[in-house]
């Protein structure tokens, strides 16, 4: 394989478009091809970053001047058994490919992110969660086997009874390359969910909803208006959802055409254009109005009235407006997501809102979820709640946004909370050390020394956080 040259260089961008870096792109189609990329890195004295669809918000899938191991051509589904629901695929398949492959047989991915575009490898590297995190945990908990290629050249087959399984998954692609995985899909008899919207007047009601449904609902998510102050702080719209049982043999709700998201709004307005209009409103004033309008609508329409919604429409809310992230151009945005133990969550999240309002840097979109701990190495799971906050970034406000993030970190760390590498763009080495703990970092480095003694795998994030 040829070494890094100007013909291979290209810009890699995080999903939030704040983090960017130029690297040398390699798109292998086989495990042999991946070995060649490591060889090219060795010969040129450079490092390798693994990249899937580039849906991590920050700098996890880029490395300035490094070799970018782009997985998107390794996207074959290798085996599918509609009897057992076991699916084996190369790591470059996307969640979209997976559900499209299995749904008509009555199977749905056990855990999905809010978008269907991540690759399976990326999802495992970050060990993603969904709106069912409090019941089903992270995606790694539904994997029965992975194949890992270490930079040192070994191929390992790992199962949940290996410690290394819990390290390869969740370690952000810093230990080895997950080349394929077998996923246990979830049986569904309908392509629809029963969705219950509940408008919440404040944090009190948001938490009450989560507590009320956590033993029962299959999915839960809360949207929060970050502009609301005082008694209204925490107001928003909570959704619980349940799988439906359809008695029919092959219900039509499982069909592709019933799941596909429409490409227009109200039948004529093309969604591909929406981000351009959204951009006009994408400022503090406009977003205050949109958040207010969404909350007001939640009180007047649909409150407490369950309705059916397709799995795709409910699960992949972020895909509803294509390329919505571009509404944040030119500066981009970050997502700040913190995970806080349940006994401290209410206080910490209310205080995070107060800090944003004081700094006049309110999050334009705030999403609230319930979680549970897991045993993966770089885990973000806690027995508690997470709050994901989208902040618009401009050249001018970036130092302020970072300062705000660092102040919010202190609250999270004091409460024993955690962070999530798929989202992170602002953590400092001391924050990462504090939430991960020395024992975890020692385990990471011990395994790294075994699998990647030359330190070939890296990322801009890993270098920023001092993980490698």
């Amino acid at each position: 394989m040829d070494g890094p040259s100007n013909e291979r260089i290209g810009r890699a961008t995080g999903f939030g478009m704040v983090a960017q870096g130029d690297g040398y792109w390699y798109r292998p189609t086989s495990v042999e091809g991946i070995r060649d990329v490591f060889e090219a890195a060795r010969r040129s004295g450079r490092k390798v970053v693994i990249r899937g669809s580039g849906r991590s918000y920050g700098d996890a899938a880029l490395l300035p001047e490094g070799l970018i191991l782009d997985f998107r051509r390794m996207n074959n589904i290798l085996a599918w058994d509609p009897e057992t629901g076991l699916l084996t695929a190369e790591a470059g398949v996307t969640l979209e490919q997976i559900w499209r492959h299995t749904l008509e047989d009555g199977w749905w991915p056990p855990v999905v992110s809010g978008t269907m575009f991540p690759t399976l490898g990326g999802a495992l590297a970050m060990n993603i969660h969904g709106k069912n995190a409090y019941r089903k945990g992270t995606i790694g908990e539904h994997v029965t086997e992975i194949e890992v290629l270490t930079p040192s050249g070994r191929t390992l087959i790992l199962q949940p009874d290996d410690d290394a399984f819990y390290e390869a998954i969740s370690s952000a692609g810093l230990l080895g390359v997950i080349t394929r995985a077998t996923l246990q899909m979830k049986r569904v008899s309908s392509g629809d969910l029963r969705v219950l919207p509940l408008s919440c007047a404040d944090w009190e009601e948001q938490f009450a909803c989560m507590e009320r449904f956590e033993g029962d609902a299959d999915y839960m998510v809360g949207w929060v208006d970050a502009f609301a102050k005082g008694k209204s702080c925490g107001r928003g719209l909570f959704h619980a959802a349940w799988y439906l049982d359809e008695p029919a043999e092959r219900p039509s709700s499982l069909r592709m055409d019933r799941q596909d998201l429409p490409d227009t709004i109200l039948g004529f307005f093309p969604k591909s254009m929406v981000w351009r209009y959204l951009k006009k409103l994408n400022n503090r004033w406009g977003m205050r109005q949109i958040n207010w309008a969404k909350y007001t609508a939640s009180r007047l329409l649909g409150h407490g009235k369950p309705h059916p919604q397709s799995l795709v429409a409910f699960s992949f809310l972020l895909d509803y407006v294509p390329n919505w992230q571009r509404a944040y151009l030119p500066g981009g945005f970050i997502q700040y997501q913190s995970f806080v133990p349940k006994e401290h969550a209410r206080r910490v999240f209310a205080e995070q809102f107060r800090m944003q309002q004081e700094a006049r840097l309110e999050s334009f979109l705030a999403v609230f979820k319930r979680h549970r701990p897991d045993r993966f190495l770089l885990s973000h799971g806690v027995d508690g709640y997470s709050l994901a906050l989208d902040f618009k970034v401009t050249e001018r406000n970036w130092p302020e946004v970072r300062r705000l993030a660092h102040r919010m970190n202190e609250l999270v760390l004091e409460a024993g909370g955690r962070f999530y590498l798929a989202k992170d763009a602002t953590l400092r080495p001391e924050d990462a050390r504090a939430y991960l703990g020395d024992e975890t970092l020692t385990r990471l480095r011990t395994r790294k020394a075994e699998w990647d003694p030359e330190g070939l795998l890296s990322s801009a994030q890993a270098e920023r956080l001092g993980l490698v």
Partner: protein
Amino acid sequence: MSKYHHAIVVGASSGIGRELTLLLAESGCKVAAVARRGDRLEELERAHPDLVFGVVHDVIAYDDVPALFVETTGRLGGLDLVVYCSGVMPEVGPSEFDFAKDRSMIEVNALGAVAWLNQAATRFQNTRSGTIVGVGSVAGERGRVGQPVYNASKAFLHAYLEALRNRLSKHGVTVTTIKPGPVQTEMTARLNLAGAMPAKDAARMILAKASLGRDCFLKPTHRLIFWIIRNFPTRLFRKLKV
């Protein structure tokens, strides 16, 4: 503060290139200073040990450039600015036609620029970003009696940079041609130029204009004078001593 973070300056050992290197480093930009004379580069490294590193290279070693370019951007950790300011102007008598001298000007002023800036163009076209600055000269505006090939080499550079700009602007790349008038440098020391600008001032103006993406003179008076010279009737121009 400059908005550049990683720069290559070719021709950094003296004159405008040296001052550009120092100014960029003072603004916090990491600079790869490329030049033939290693001892001069060490001085620059000593002035800014964390930000400047020297790359010893003779710009006429064209075949070395592709590998050296990639290696240099690797050491820099990125690239958003490339400035080509290598240039030679040997003394040429009023009736002298010396091929060796003429060849050296074309090799350094023109071909060296193509070797380096083709690399920059390839990279920036692919990353859809970046700024290329070429230091030309007002001397490239007309063929004059004193320096036929120096004039021609700078005219070549101007046309080449204009073509790069036209090719690359749609990829989000900025290409700026700087046409300095007389500047106090080693190259011009023997000429005793009246009213020559200190190299430091020239460098400051070049950095201020780097993002403009067009042909730039450094002073409005140069723009006017050279507009007149460019449009001066050729029959009369040949009678002048300029």
